[in-house]
């Protein structure tokens, strides 16, 4: 990759990376080469004819020939001209032709100001329309709650269909008709089925696909104060830009991190932010007054004093949170003490997290980019499309590697998209999906194996045996032999699993297999999707057996005087019947949360906390990558981060103090020291873009006086235009935070990132890997509770859903519309043996809770398994039983 070649552009010699195309080389050199159809992740199509340059055979050649730079590989000694009159003329004509049908929509287009077409039109010099004729028009489609469709604006670059069909594997979106009648959409109106459809808003160079929820609270890009954040809707930890204006969170955009999400986000991450603006947000500290049957509103200091009073009475138990930053959890743990700190996840999940953190130093935990480079992959126990969606997209790209290798043998470069796909056809790298039911990656799998958990485990044990003794094929099943052979044959095999299947034994088996693989092949890797954004932090901080089930036991045995619950809704894990009576036994319940959850309603004292958009914090993703997220807006009302609420009790007043304590106390968190050492440059960084508008009017409706902007004491970022603007930040190396936006001179749209990819790849803002240091001692304890899997009879397994599972994401109205109704899903044979028909109720019991769900028949669910939605599964626990299948009276 480090090979360099020299090319001559307009008489100037440049050194560029070998193997890439000329367009990318120009962009890396900060040359403003216009383009539409090329995309760094999807390669070249050569369809828009925008990036034409003159290519000369040699120094004597004066005529040259026009080539499309996106389709031309860079060659040593290559001579090209961008400024050549013919090339300029060709590009100007091409854009003029593209623009003939473009409507006069910019003022009423959500893309305006953030539009690649606007930028490219100006760069190509087409500023006045000469075409007097009529424009073609198209009817639009309803594409669901995430995207607007406005086909008139289409310029026919094919990016959308290449992304949706080729990159994401969607099959409900296509291109219709031909030439300037071309149409991109579905066969008929309807919600786009793919989980990554929201990216179309960023992939489309103009305003055909625009962000629908954003349109409801629209603001131009130049008005959006943006900060670099980390997505908190799953454990992958995608990097995002969170954009705000006037205290309202408006939009989430992708933030390029070459090691994690690169160019794309899932729809849960992109649209699951509306809890920040929700009406249920807590604003002031409340204290319950039982005598007078009313709620008192406290001020911040008296609320903090109340907590201190209760805490000083002793006997305090605290509950940490998987959706809160590392600092908040650590501060709570510090004040409560290890024995009194319970992680806000189930005991089973905590057990799995401890397995993972203990083994993590021996395993090589893969980044998503590395998963894309693997050539054999086994996915066990869960459908990552629903639990860690961006990971699924990476796996889908991984299956292309065999095809890319095949093309490479013919000398075809990976960015020659059409040629590669032609050669590859159905050639795919081996990918096995082992699950209880069909996954969303079933179409690219070499084999989909649907088995109940007990048999999944025995299959894994067979694979494990085969990896140690590859010749014992006769005792193993056909599937196990195929998996073991492919894993052993691969140059970079990987194993992907997760903790969301609630099955420690399967995880332990996966870790053992991965360790075996690592001994045989040092390039092998492992990924375990965890439950929520910061479950990994809880896994590091808390001991095993200190999960929520243990908390319930403690409440049952001897209720503590004070219970502090931070950003965890206990009612998501336990039913009302269990919790109501137990919480009544606690004298003082303190709830720190951002939203009025069921648990907050039970509290004696509610302390409003900030959301991720209003506070700084560190998040540890599933691969042990610690990433910093920066507040987008200042906290308003009486909201404070939990660290601040607890500061007098924990003795840590700032995030830095908490992190320093973490680095000292936990060996896994020692690398955090890097963060503390690098902070403190003299520069301040602007969150608002250079041309932020309406600053003397936006608040004038309330008060015409202009007040100074809020101060951010926690970081170098300013809540104003003061400081280094985004377009200059990536050029300067001394910054400790990633840029606060994607801008580049002349490039207003977020496509400007494509000029910064080279510097982004080498930036040190990609997070700190906590488990990067390999230890040689392989003495991790993989003992698990054997009773977790019942080997006979029926297994009740969780059915994950991308939109239903995450607590905070479900506050978004757009996401709510796509949550399916809860059903007990099983195959026809299973339903027959239980004697239920489609739609009839099925009753379950577990953890002192019983519930009924309507039966739904789905093919591709293995026999012996009944699937229950994750939310219900959590409340039933993983030892749930099916009580009766009640046959309806009809």
């Amino acid at each position, binding site marked *: 990759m480090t090979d360099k070649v020299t090319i001559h552009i307009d008489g100037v010699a440049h050194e560029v990376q070998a193997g890439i195309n000329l367009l990318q080389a120009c962009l890396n050199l900060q040359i403003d080469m216009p383009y539409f159809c090329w995309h760094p992740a999807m390669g070249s199509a050569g369809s828009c004819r925008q990036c034409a340059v003159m290519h000369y055979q040699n120094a004597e050649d004066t005529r040259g020939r026009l080539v499309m730079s996106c389709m031309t590989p860079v060659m040593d000694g290559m001579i090209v001209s961008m400024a050549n009159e013919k090339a300029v003329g060709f590009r100007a004509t091409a854009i003029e032709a593209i623009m003939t049908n473009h409507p006069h929509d910019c*003022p009423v287009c959500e893309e305006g100001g953030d539009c690649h077409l606007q930028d490219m039109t100006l760069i190509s010099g087409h500023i006045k329309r000469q075409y007097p004729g009529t424009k073609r*028009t*198209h009817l639009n489609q309803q594409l669901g709650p995430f995207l607007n469709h406005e086909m008139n*604006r289409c310029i026919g670059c094919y990016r959308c269909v290449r992304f949706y069909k080729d990159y994401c594997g969607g099959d409900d979106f296509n291109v219709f008709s031909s030439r300037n009648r071309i*149409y991109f959409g579905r066969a008929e109106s309807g919600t786009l089925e793919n989980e990554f459809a929201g990216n179309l808003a960023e992939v489309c160079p103009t305003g055909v696909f625009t962000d629908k929820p954003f349109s409801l609270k629209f603001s*131009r890009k130049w008005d959006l104060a943006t900060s670099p954040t980390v997505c908190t809707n799953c454990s992958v930890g995608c990097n995002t830009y969170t954009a705000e204006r006037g205290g309202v969170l408006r939009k989430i955009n992708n933030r390029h991190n070459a090691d994690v999400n690169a160019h794309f986000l899932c729809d849960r991450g992109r649209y699951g932010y509306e809890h920040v603006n929700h009406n249920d947000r807590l604003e002031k500290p409340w204290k319950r007054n039982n005598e007078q049957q009313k709620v008192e509103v406290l001020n911040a200091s008296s609320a903090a004093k109340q907590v201190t009073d209760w805490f000083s009475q002793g006997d305090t138990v605290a509950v940490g949170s998987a959706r809160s930053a590392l600092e908040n959890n650590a501060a709570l743990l510090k004040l409560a003490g290890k024995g009194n700190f319970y992680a806000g996840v189930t005991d089973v999940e905590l057990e799995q997290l401890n397995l993972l953190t203990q083994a993590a130093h021996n395993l090589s935990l893969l980044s998503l980019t590395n998963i894309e480079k693997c050539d054999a992959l086994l996915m066990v126990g869960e459908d990552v499309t629903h639990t860690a969606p961006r990971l699924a997209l990476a796996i889908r790209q991984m299956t292309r590697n065999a095809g890319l290798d095949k093309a490479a043998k013919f000398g075809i470069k990976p960015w020659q998209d059409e040629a590669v796909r032609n050669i590859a056809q159905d050639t795919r790298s081996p990918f096995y999906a082992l699950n209880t039911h069909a996954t969303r990656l079933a179409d690219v799998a070499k084999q989909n194996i649907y088995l109940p958990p007990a048999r999944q485990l025995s299959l894994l044990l067979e694979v494990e045996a085969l990896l140690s003794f590859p010749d014992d094929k006769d005792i193993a099943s056909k599937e196990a032999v195929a998996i073991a052979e492919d894993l052993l044959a691969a140059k970079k095999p990987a194993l992907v699993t997760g903790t969301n299947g609630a099955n420690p034994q399967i995880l332990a088996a996966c870790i053992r297999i991965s360790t075996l693989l690592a001994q045989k092949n040092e390039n092998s890797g492992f990924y375990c999707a965890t439950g929520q954004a910061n479950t990994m932090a809880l896994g590091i901080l808390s001991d095993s057996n200190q999960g929520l089930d243990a908390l319930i036991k403690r409440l049952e045995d001897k209720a503590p005087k004070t219970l502090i619950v931070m950003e965890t809704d206990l009612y998501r894990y336990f039913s009302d019947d269990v919790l109501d009576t137990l919480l009544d036994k606690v004298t003082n319940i303190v709830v720190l949360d951002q939203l009025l959850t069921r648990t907050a309603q039970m509290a004696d004292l509610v302390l409003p906390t900030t959301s991720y958009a209003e506070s700084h914090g560190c998040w540890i993703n599933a691969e042990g990558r610690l990433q910093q997220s920066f507040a987008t807006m200042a906290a308003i009302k009486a909201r404070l981060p939990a660290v601040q609420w607890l500061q007098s009790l924990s003795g840590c007043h700032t995030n830095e103090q908490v992190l320093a304590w973490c680095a000292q106390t936990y060996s896994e968190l020692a690398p955090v020291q890097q963060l503390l050492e690098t902070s403190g440059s003299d520069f301040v960084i602007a969150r608002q873009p250079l041309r932020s*508008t309406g600053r003397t*009017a936006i608040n004038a*409706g309330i008060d*015409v006086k202009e007040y100074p902007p809020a101060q951010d004491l926690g970081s170098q970022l300013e809540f104003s235009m003061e400081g280094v603007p985004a377009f200059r930040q990536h050029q300067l190396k001394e910054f400790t935070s990633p840029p606060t936006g994607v801008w580049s001179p002349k490039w207003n749209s977020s496509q400007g990132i494509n000029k910064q990819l080279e510097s982004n790849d080498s930036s040190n803002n990609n997070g700190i890997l906590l488990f990067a240091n390999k230890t040689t001692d392989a003495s991790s304890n993989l003992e698990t509770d054997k009773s977790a899997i019942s080997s006979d009879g029926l297994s009740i397994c969780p059915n994950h859903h991308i939109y239903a599972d995450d607590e905070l994401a479900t506050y978004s109205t757009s996401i709510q519309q796509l949550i399916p109704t809860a059903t007990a899903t099983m195959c026809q044979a299973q339903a027959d043996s239980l004697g239920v028909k489609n739609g009839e109720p099925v009753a379950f019991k577990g953890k002192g809770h019983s519930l009924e769900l309507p039966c739904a028949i789905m093919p591709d669910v293995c026999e012996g398994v009944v699937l229950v939605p994750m939310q219900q599964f959590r409340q039933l626990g993983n030892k749930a039983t099916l009580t009766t299948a009640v046959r309806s009276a009809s």
Partner: protein
Amino acid sequence: MMSQIRTLISILKHSFTKTDTVQYPEEKPYLSPRYRGRIVLTRDPDGEERCVACNLCSVACPVDCISVEKAETEDGRWMADTFRINFSRCIMCGFCEEACPTHAIQLTPDVEMGEYNRQNLVYEKEHLLIDGPGKYHDYNFYKVCGKAIGGKEKGEALNEKPPIDIRSLMP
């Protein structure tokens, strides 16, 4: 000596010329219709609000005294939910009018805006909106833009072909 006499004559002559100063406010000077004074929001010839909340006026404004929030009607028409001008900051430069793609925002020859309380110089949309088209009588943005709104379907705007039937096999 001569120069002093000349000066006296010159000054005496000025006593008989017509004054440019008028007794404001009893007497008001003529301001041309293009004079840059108080800003108004106009309506299109059909009586609908012209402003589409595109934010171009606010980005053109050198003193950042215009704040616009977009809203959308059920039939797809964009309009301003909030349109606020802080006239205590406005310098009447007219850049907003130049930037406006729909001729919605216009400056008028009214300059009498003095207030004792600065807060009264904050004009909301209801204070800015007038009932007529202002200086530009005929322009109707939605008649030229490609977006469909109630009463104007796709293909019915100026210079537009009817919508394409993508399932047609005709060349």
